[in-house]
């Protein structure tokens, strides 16, 4: 609220213009994964017919899921390394008027969006785990 710094704040990195892109990186991975799953299976079923076995398509979907989760995990690790970004710090408000605080704020948002995107990716893959044909 006030211009003063938080009590235990030390000089931190401030990030730069790519901060905003990093916030949406994980949701973009979700979107790409989602599009891939939907488009791949739709084309597969359209070309193979409704009685076709889904086994091969499911392997592709699971491969894509592993890739997407891996990418999100990698992003998470990188953001985790931003000093005192979120869950290990005792300040969740990010309301000071400094570039450091802005950087921590965006990193916090990016980190939690990684979590949300990973959950959403897992949601998407559920149907591919138990459906076995294109019916």
């Amino acid at each position, binding site marked *: *609220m*006030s*211009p003063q710094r938080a009590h235990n704040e030390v000089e931190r990195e401030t*990030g*730069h*213009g790519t*901060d*905003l892109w990093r*916030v*949406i990186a994980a*949701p*973009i991975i*979700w*979107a790409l994964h*989602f599009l891939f*799953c*939907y488009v791949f*299976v*739709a*084309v597969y*079923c*359209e*070309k193979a017919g*409704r009685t076709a076995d*889904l086994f091969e*398509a499911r392997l592709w979907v699971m491969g894509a899921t592993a890739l997407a989760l891996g990418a999100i995990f990698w992003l998470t690790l990188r953001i985790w390394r931003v000093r005192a970004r979120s869950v290990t710090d005792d300040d*969740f*408000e*990010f*309301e000071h*008027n*400094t*570039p450091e*605080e*802005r950087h921590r*704020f*965006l990193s*916090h*948002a990016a980190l*939690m*969006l990684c979590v*949300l*995107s990973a*959950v*959403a990716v897992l*949601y*998407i893959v*559920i*149907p*591919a785990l138990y*459906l076995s044909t*294109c*019916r």
Partner: protein
Amino acid sequence: MTDKAEEEQQLGKVWDSPRGWAALSDVNNSVIGKWYITASFAFMLFAGVLALIMRTQLAVPDNGLVSAQTYNQLFTLHGTVMMFLFAVPIFEAVAILILPAMLGARDLPFPRLSAFGFWCFVIGGIFVCGSIFFDAAPDAGWFMYPPLSTEQSGIGADIWLLGLSFIEVASIAAAVELIVGVLKCRAPGMHINLTPLYGWYVLIVGAMILFAFPPLIAGDYLFELERAFDWPFFDVSRGGDPLLWQHLFWIFGHPEVYIIFLPAIALLAMIIPTFAQRPIAGYSWIVLSAIGTGFLSFGLWVHHMFTTGLPAISLGFFSAASEAVAIPTGIQLFVFIATVMLGNVVRTVPMLFCLGALANFLVGGLTGVMVAVAPFDFQVHDTYFIVAHLHYTLIGGMVFPLLAGVQYYYPFATGKMLSRKAGIWSFWLLFVGFNVTFLPMHLTGLMGMPRRVFTYGADRDWGLLNMVSTVGAFIFAAGFLLFLWDCVRSKRHEPDAPRNAWNAGTLEWAGKVPADQWGLRSIPQINSRYPLWDDKNLLDTIDQGRGLLADAAEGRRETLVTSVLDAEPEQVLRVGTPSWLPAMAAFGLGGVFIFATWKLWWLTLASGIFFLAVVLYWLWTGTAEIPEKPSKDIGDGRRLPLYVAGPRSTGWWAMFITMTGDLTAYLGVLFGYFFLWTVHENFPPAGVSGPGWQWPLVAAILAIATWGAMVAARLSNAAGRVGLARALIIASTIGNVFTALALMAGPWTSGLDPTSHSYPAIVWALVVWVVSHLLAGMIMQLYCLARSIFGRMTPAHDADLWNVTLYWHFIGFSALLTALVIGGFPLLQ
């Protein structure tokens, strides 16, 4: 006269509104915002009356108040007007009104663009609404499914389509304006983590518009080609597929629901902290979950198509995403509830509407989770259960928050207070009326009543529930009338509202009552999210003119442009003054759409030329003006440039944003190509050889050369070699013409007839799309050449060339991609 008084006099003169008839040429955001809101509410009332007629018709079984044909027009127009003329535009309207004050800007970066958007909206809206008085209204449902809409509808479908295209123009104009506004026009020191939540929501929704509306534009484009020229994209007998329309419509349609919902709860995010008298309880959680909602909302569109026979696994993906979106949406609601719980709530009318919104939206959200489950949806699809669900989400999630916003911002906009008593009465009428109308509809739907039927037999036992709904609808309407009356009744004899009437913490309440035309007296440094609560000297600083940009010495309307992340001042932007040009341009464009509806091609062409002439004059006289001095003192010992070109300028960002939307629309058309490929065994169909690979290859090479010449022109102009730059622009213009010819040569020489089958139709659709963009690009190139020759564009002042080159990055890319797809993809088969 003191310096300070002189400054105020300058500001007053520069920002004064035109009077008399000229008042209609105003462009100031506070005026346009009020017009925009008024117009949206007028359309809403119109659509509300349509709904009352429908409810009266359905009150008893076998009623004969209106015919089936009229009823079709009623429900189509009700949905269309509510969605396109109220729910989406009201977001733009409210944002245009309150956003600049919230960010500490004097105006939005492109006020004339706002005015243009407003006029487009009004003309398109009147055109669409008026059709019902001539028995010519669209009648195929608000999502216009072919083949009903392409084969059977009269002119109504064209009116729907062209009227809407027009309104899409207004939406994208607003998106450009608002995104640039939030990113570049915040008060100094307002780091992105201190931006009011409303600004965040506007940013997210603006970005969503860029990816959601263009697929509908692509769909409209294909749809009108089929309606007007018989190109069979959706006609199964000639290789088309109606599902293509459903995909394009709902890729737009589902995000649109969130485009409507997010800005409305953004109002809650401003109102609730004020009346809880404490900061919002989880600022970063709101931001991240709004971003998450924005993304996930694009993965839901097929849940409108659960019964179209898609494979179960496709339904599964969309069902899963539809459940997942409940997570970020829920986080936002929990943050609101937490803020209320942690604060000391002040009992006010806006707060009442906020709580009503939360309660009603919750019901809509829960039935949403139900219908996201595909097997349940199979049962209730196209029944009144869906009608109940969608009205709970839209009225609970959008209308109630909006009315809370009207109650809350009324003193901000008009300087007067609304009546507390009338507010409470209207709230309870609305709340009770709404629930009495729509709660029984869940049951009506479960008992099997389909939506969109104009009557039903007495033996169905739907009579009582329908009667209850009808009674509720009139109670709801009474609440609305009371609300409206309270807003419009004369308050001349009432005292002005006090300054900062609700003791709010955000900057929009720093203005005086009655409000000054120029917004804040001076632009203060911002150090926190709730500056009015945290900085007790802020009002003094502003009023005494101790902030930045306290004068208008050169007699120009000016606002500050700051950096995206940390809001460091970067430029003094001179914004547009009142002008008839935006309205004239809107009327020209309106003529194009309206005359095209009746296939009056010569008048369409004349309107198009008029539109182009006005826009060119507008650009020539009103943009990228070379200032009389390079920089200006803004106070506090700072000097800022008056002219900025390239990625640091607002104009470059506006071009970037517009073209992102345009590229999305192009990709929508391209999606059509691949979609049609998936539904055919042979695509291209057997016996069709076009367009061949030779001409597309030539086109691709020419496109790269043209694109390269444009980039080289910018670089050489910047290096001071003006002659070379002009030569390169000319070379690029010629290359442009040949690119267009080569693109058309492929399908032309191979004799592809677009009316014969969906394959030649989609190839031609891609080519026509790119060629029309090349044509627009040619006009821009010639414009740059003229600017250079007439000394309005120099090596140091090259904003025009930057922006046109940026346009070429997009168009070069789409020309190249088109050539590769139409020439190369058939070779892979």
